[in-house]
């Protein structure tokens, strides 16, 4: 849009430049001319609801809201006159008297845009009678509360939900002063299609929407905000973390209406506090078989001695290392360097290693050019898609922001959504076509789709082996029409994107990955657009370091295993059995879990907020996570701990 024509306006007597297509407010902001606003939020559409941004425009019969008034060449605008200021204060008084805007028991007091405008206009009283309506408060959502009494009907929540989240759960009901923001068809938020991402909370200028985990715990002015990166799912959203007295008060998206700034319920709410008991001191299993607290010296010496012992007796290959892909790249590098060089073993893997091997084998079966994960496209490419095929994944659960991108493509680009998953998957309800084949028949289904798409686009390659529709119908239990409908959507799409996730990884079938890639290639017009939703925040970082390249674990039957869990959640996986059978198990983890309970030595580990490091997002972009709180005393950085153990060998 940089080629837009430049225009010149006169604002408050000064000549200022703007671009054709800008609103008067945008020109004012670009030229550092302050105009008060409430319903305006950069990046959202403008609706002129609050009228606080009114300006005088020469030639206009009356004052106009600058946020919706298109700027044009030669416009003469005045932003501040006694008359305008009079109206602005009047609007504030009307808002204050309309509902319950008493600040002293409001969760947003101190961080409220309405309040700060009232201060600005020295609104020490209201000249109008208060209406005192008794409006409901919706508290059924796990994290969000909507108090309609505090709502000023600016519509920022409605617009952010529709335009940024793509969910469009929220909208207005009724008319005039009876207007209420409602979810779906006037359901409570907790029972609606709301995905609890909290974008509405961050957009809300007042305390009408507040968070159960952050309310009354501290204001922005009382703490410190640190820009960091969310390390949970690999989308790599940028966050602003508010910390007061070494406690996380609130996590906001760094750029709510931009890319990767909206956050989801995991990044915004679930990390504010975690009640899982922490490991706060090294623990060593004593002769009675109980874990008892030990000093760092004793614990690291024991580990070093055991490594030396096993190396001497059974060779380095009797020792294996496992690491969670939730760790930052620095920790992953230190751990793999330690296992490979200091210990000398090649048996090292990530907890999600089997996902990597499935993807990697699938990619190399698809193409021999050795580009590996780099054949994948960026997450943003979803936003331009006109057809999204989702295979074996519910992105709204595993990678909610990626899921939102798909919803945005649906609402903004009229993209059709096709879901292929044999498992129960609520994302299917949002799809145009939900193909739910019999378990294990996904490959046949994709093969048939390939054949149908290839027929239309005539881009088949000799090496491709298609499945006939009749065979697919038999194997999948789906109707012929449904399969053909999905194929038609894919083949008519100009810009299709294929997203696949955990359902494909757990099937551990590289051929399925190759099928997904083949189908994407057949349907694509300009370049392959495939994205795999990798399990953890730094999966791609770990995989690119080669930690998951070979699976030696099961074959090696290690006698000693060193598991660096850090703040990852314990989930069953195929790595558990070899760990369970090992003679000596070291677990370095932030939280108590079944794994720490069966370990011989447990070492504490910091959580995401207590360390800094680099994370590689699932589409290969590097983000920096920062240390925002100090760890509980006695917890040392993982890299430091590994170095200490290495020194003892």
């Amino acid at each position: 849009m940089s080629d837009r024509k430049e225009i010149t306006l006169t604002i408050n007597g000064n000549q200022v430049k703007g671009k054709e297509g800008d609103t008067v407010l945008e020109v004012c902001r670009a030229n550092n001319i302050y105009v008060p606003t409430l319903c305006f939020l950069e990046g959202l559409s403008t609706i002129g609801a609050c009228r606080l941004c009114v300006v005088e425009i020469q030639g206009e019969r009356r004052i106009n809201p600058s946020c919706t008034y298109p700027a044009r060449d030669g416009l003469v605008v005045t932003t501040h006159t006694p008359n305008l200021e009079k109206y602005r204060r009047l609007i504030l008084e009307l808002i204050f008297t309309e509902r319950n805007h008493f600040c002293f028991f409001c969760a947003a007091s101190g961080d409220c845009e309405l309040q700060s405008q009232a201060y600005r206009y020295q609104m020490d009283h209201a000249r109008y009678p208060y209406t005192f309506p008794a409006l409901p408060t919706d508290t059924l959502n796990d994290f969000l509360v909507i108090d309609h009494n505090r709502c000023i009907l600016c519509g920022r929540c409605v617009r952010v939900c529709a335009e940024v989240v793509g969910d469009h759960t929220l909208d207005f009901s009724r008319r005039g002063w009876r207007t209420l923001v409602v979810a779906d068809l006037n359901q409570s938020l907790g029972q609606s299609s709301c995905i609890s991402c909290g974008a509405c909370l961050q957009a809300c200028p007042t305390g009408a929407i507040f968070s159960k985990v952050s309310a009354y715990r501290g204001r922005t002015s009382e703490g410190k905000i640190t820009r960091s990166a969310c390390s949970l799912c690999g989308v790599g959203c940028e966050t602003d973390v508010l910390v007061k007295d070494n406690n996380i008060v609130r996590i906001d998206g760094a750029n709510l209406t931009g890319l990767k700034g909206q956050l989801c319920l995991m990044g915004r709410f679930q990390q504010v506090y975690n009640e899982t008991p922490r490991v706060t001191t090294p623990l060593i299993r004593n002769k009675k078989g109980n874990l008892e607290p030990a000093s760092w010296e004793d614990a690291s010496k024991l580990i070093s001695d055991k490594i030396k012992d096993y190396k001497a007796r059974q060779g380095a290959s009797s020792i294996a290392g496992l690491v969670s892909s939730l760790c930052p790249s620095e920790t992953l590098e230190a751990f793999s360097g330690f296992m490979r060089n200091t210990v000398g073993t090649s048996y090292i893997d990530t907890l999600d290693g089997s996902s990597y091997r499935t993807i990697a084998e699938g990619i190399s079966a698809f193409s021999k050019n050795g580009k590996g994960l780099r054949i994948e496209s960026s997450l943003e490419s979803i936003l331009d898609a006109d057809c999204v095929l989702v295979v074996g994944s519910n992105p709204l659960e595993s990678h909610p922001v990626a899921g939102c991108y798909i919803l945005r493509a649906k609402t903004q680009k009229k993209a059709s959504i096709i879901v292929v998953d044999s498992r129960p998957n609520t994302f299917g309800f949002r799809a145009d076509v939900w193909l739910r084949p019999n378990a294990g028949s996904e490959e046949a289904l994709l093969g048939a789709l390939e054949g149908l798409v290839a027929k239309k686009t005539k881009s088949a390659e000799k090496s491709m082996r298609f499945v006939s529709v009749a065979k697919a119908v038999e194997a999948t239990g789906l109707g012929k029409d449904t399969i053909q409908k999905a194929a038609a959507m894919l083949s008519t799409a100009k810009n299709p994107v294929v997203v696949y996730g955990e359902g494909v990884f757990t099937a551990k079938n590289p051929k399925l990955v190759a099928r997904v890639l083949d189908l994407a290639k057949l349907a694509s017009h300009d370049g392959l657009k495939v994205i795999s939703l990798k399990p953890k925040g730094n999966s791609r970082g770990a995989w690119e370091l080669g930690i998951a390249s070979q699976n030696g674990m099961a074959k090696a039957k290690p006698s000693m295993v060193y598991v660096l869990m850090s703040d990852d959640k314990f989930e069953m996986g195929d790595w558990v059995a070899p760990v369970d059978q090992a003679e000596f198990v070291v677990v370095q983890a932030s939280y108590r879990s079944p794994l720490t309970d069966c370990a011989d030595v447990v070492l504490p580990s910091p959580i995401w907020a207590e360390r800094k490091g680099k994370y590689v997002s699932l589409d290969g972009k590097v983000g920096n996570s920062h240390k925002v709180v100090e760890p509980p005393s006695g917890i040392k950085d993982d890299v430091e701990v590994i170095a200490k153990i290495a020194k003892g060998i």
Partner: protein
Amino acid sequence: MAKVKLATSWLDACAGCEMSLLDVDEFIIDLAQAVEFTRSPITDIKEFPEVDVGLITGAIGMDEQEEEAKELRAKCKILIVLGDCACFGGICAMRNAFPKEEVLRRAYIECESVKDGKIPSSPEIPTLLDKALPVNAIVKVDCFVPGCPPRAGDIKYALSELLQGRIPVLPSDMMRFD
């Protein structure tokens, strides 16, 4: 110079504003030299004399308070109100979402700590108004100092300005509603 006569009235309020007034530290000495406190919570004078400045804290929630506000308005030259309750209705206005009868029933009968309660009905006690209102909904107010409670500094600023013959409006950076 003759002392400025001041009368205060404590309506539907929690005493936080009075506490804040006492919290002006050594300014209270200057104040005492310049101001004669007539009716106030510490002087135990029952009737309002004619005064220069009337000061009200609290919203108007009962008929007696309405009467008192009107009387003070009639007897003072300048009326200043302190605190969110007096300026906006404040915490007292929380009951306004419910009918008066429901509020009384909740307080005197349904409240967990009440046994065999009944709503008082003696003609000697004031009756609750339908809604708790800010003072300016009943009488004309000349000066507002919001805050819950207003900071001692806000009160000091407002009274100093008044003593120097100006009607103050709190500056933006001083104003607080909480």
